[in-house]
């Protein structure tokens, strides 16, 4: 093994420094992960209420549903795509997984599917697209990803809805990362608009509305029209929270792996260093003993 004792000691130190940094990053990611998990849990009752009501009203409205603007194909051509990635790297395969999914989807598109209009949350996805010469319609970088709250998610949803309603596209899709467990994050491709009625009528929510004696104030249609935009907003908010949770879970794991790898390397360097040191001592001893022998 090449390298002097001093060289080995220097490498040992620098690996130690990197290990300290990755361990700090791991801890930061753990804290943030917990925070976003809490927020995801806190947002669930709201999403459940909205979804439940939209589903029940959809059951009441029945066939009228297909005439509502957010349930019809848009007037424009092509697809608007919202891509949710991270702002920063060092989070394992998180970004490449979602971008690979996006590329696969784009390759499968036909000529007649029309153009793709890109909307980005997260700098990595934006950079990925612009570097490849793809035009990005909107990049939402204010506020920064970590400071996104419901209001900023709602703004994104409104921008997409307006684009859709003004004839910018035929459909809106959202590419994000679903958080399944601490070690499993799945890139997802979901249709945001037009809303598919079948996804609203999941579960037994439909039956409950059957209780026809519920007073609707002012009427089913009006309530529905005020709640549906909220439904779109919660969908975007939820996708964002899940993506952020996945990002920090992924970052935590990759930083933990880096810390462990640095530990292994340190062990290796330490044993090399010890062997080298022993060798030198033995050599020096032999020299002394040899010299003493020669003097006799």
């Amino acid at each position, binding site marked *: 093994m090449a390298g002097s004792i001093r060289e080995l000691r220097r490498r040992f130190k620098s690996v130690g420094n990197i290990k300290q940094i990755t361990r700090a990053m791991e801890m930061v990611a753990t804290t943030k992960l917990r925070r976003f998990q809490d927020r995801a849990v806190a947002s669930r009752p709201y999403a459940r209420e909205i979804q439940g009501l939209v589903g029940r009203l959809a059951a009441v409205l029945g066939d009228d549903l297909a005439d509502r603007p957010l349930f019809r194909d848009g007037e424009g051509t092509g697809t608007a795509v919202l891509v949710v990635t991270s702002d920063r790297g060092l989070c394992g395969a998180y970004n490449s997984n979602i971008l690979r999914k996006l590329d696969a989807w784009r390759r499968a598109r036909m000529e007649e599917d029309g153009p793709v209009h890109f909307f980005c949350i997260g700098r990595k996805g934006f950079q990925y697209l612009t570097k490849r010469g793809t035009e990005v319609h909107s990049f939402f970088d204010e506020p920064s990803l970590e400071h996104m709250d419901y209001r900023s998610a709602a703004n994104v949803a409104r921008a997409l809805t307006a684009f859709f309603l003004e004839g910018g596209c035929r459909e809106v899709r959202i590419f994000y990362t679903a958080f399944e467990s601490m070690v499993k994050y799945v890139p997802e491709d979901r249709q945001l608009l037009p809303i598919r009625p079948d996804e609203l009528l999941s579960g037994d929510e439909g039956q409950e509305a059957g209780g026809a004696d*519920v*007073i609707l*104030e002012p009427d089913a249609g009006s309530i529905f029209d005020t709640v549906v935009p909220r439904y779109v907003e919660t969908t975007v908010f939820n996708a964002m929270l899940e993506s952020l949770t996945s990002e920090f879970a992924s970052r935590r794991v990759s930083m933990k792996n880096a810390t462990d790898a640095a530990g292994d390397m340190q062990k290796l360097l330490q044993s090399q260093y010890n062997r080298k040191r022993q060798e030198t001592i033995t050599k020096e001893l032999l020299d002394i003993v040899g010299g003493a022998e020669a003097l006799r």
Partner: protein
Amino acid sequence: MELTLRVITPESVALDTTASSVRIPALDGQMGILPRHASMVAALEAGVLTWTEQGASRAMFVSGGFAEVRDNTVRVVSEAGERPEDIDTERAQRAAERARERLRKAHGGDHDVDVLRAELALRRAIMRERVASGLAPGLRAAMGAGRS
């Protein structure tokens, strides 16, 4: 008999309490709810939610959404639910001023202004100020309903 009152927002459950009467800012005007109310779903506009809790009247700002009444439970689902002490009065005043400015421009023939949005913003700001200053509309009426 009491009502369970819950205000649910995207970031949290802003309120979970019991009340003897509740008053909601429905689209068609204020609406009072007493125990044993029939099942109802009502769309809300930005305004003041008031309720009577142990004889005392309380208020909260809600920014629209809807309210659902079922089995003596009132669930208000809104983007924002703010108690008077949470409201930044200065910010609300600034927001009101901005909205008024936009409306003045629209009045002067500026077609770039989204009048509806400005009006809604102004309404939210005014309602926030009202809640913060304790001048919620119908506060007294809600108290009266609580006693009966």
